């Protein structure tokens, strides 16, 4: 009987080590960089396709935004990461994410002032009004 145990011991150890060598482990982490993608009416782009390129231009991650339009990743190198999101219906947006040496995102490279859209819109309106006025005046002058 002892001989049987001895004969099975080594194969048994090898077999068990094979079992333990496989398998998945989960470790919870915090932090990372998150982006939320939405349409002009603030509705989220749920399940939109995205591609993330690392600072070397290699594809680092590919997937879909979640149901609230969020995309989250943990950068493993500093530099400019490039994110492209496409809704498959003619809308596409690209964003550069500058990651510092501490692997944390830095301030946006092209930050927008909260009132930038309003200022732009008002400028467009005044510009159009001026153009229409110019054309009208020109026509009156000719007549």
């Amino acid at each position, binding site marked *: 009987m002892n001989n049987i145990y001895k004969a099975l011991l080594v194969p048994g150890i090898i077999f068990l080590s094979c079992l333990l060598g496989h398998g998945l482990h989960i470790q919870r982490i915090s932090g990372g960089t998150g982006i939320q993608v939405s349409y*002009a009416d603030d*509705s989220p782009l*749920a*399940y*939109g*396709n995205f591609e993330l390129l690392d600072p070397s231009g290699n594809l680092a991650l590919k997937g*879909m935004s979640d*149901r609230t339009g969020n995309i989250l990743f943990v950068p493993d190198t500093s530099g400019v990461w490039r994110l492209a999101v*496409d*809704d*498959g*219906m*003619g809308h596409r947006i690209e964003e550069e994410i500058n990651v510092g040496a501490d692997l944390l995102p830095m301030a946006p490279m092209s930050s927008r002032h909260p009132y930038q859209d309003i200022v732009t*819109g008002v400028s*467009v*309106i005044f510009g*159009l*009004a001026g153009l229409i006025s110019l054309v009208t005046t020109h026509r009156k002058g000719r007549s």
Partner: protein
Amino acid sequence: MLIFCRLLIGPLLAHDTWLLCDYNFQQTPGTITLQLSSGHDFPESDFLLDKDLINNWRLWNLDSVLVLSSFTADSVQRCWTANLIVQEPGVMISQLGLKRALQPEPLVWVKTIIVTGPTVFDEEQYKCSEGLEIVPLGAIHQLHPGGNIPLQLCWQGDPVASSIAVIHPQSKMKHLRTTQETPGILTLHKPGQYLLTSTYQKRSCSLTLNILAKGYGE
């Protein structure tokens, strides 16, 4: 001026998705081609939709339903095309939804009505009773310029209140109001293809109609 500019910019930025049929009321049997297009300037397609968005593209009449599983991309026309052989005259509806993976239901419903021969009008033939759809309440094959047709917006087969946009390549965009009790009345001034679109509770739909210079058979 502000309202004017917002109205001006709105249509420029919004885009539509539609189904077109090239059958033009020809005699059966015959082949029809369905085209799924999307863009800002109906009937010209601006871009090819992602194939993964196309959900449950079907063709049906009162008797049967056919799921279109084979459709090809036309990179020149920037549209998806499906060819069908029609043996019998009558009315068919083609409808599909646009849905991203994991979304529980489509957010966009696209529909066209195909009249392939003489037919007796039946209001139920034009209704899919699924999703958001615009339902004509009159015989399409009898329509010609100068005629009217009531249009009802339905969600899951039930009338709902909203507005229907009417787009024709040679006409200005019009809007029709519909309520649960009262359909919108579309007056057809010109022949050709019409695109009707509407939205309801963050969903949108479209319906295309092909109006001949004279009604079918005239």
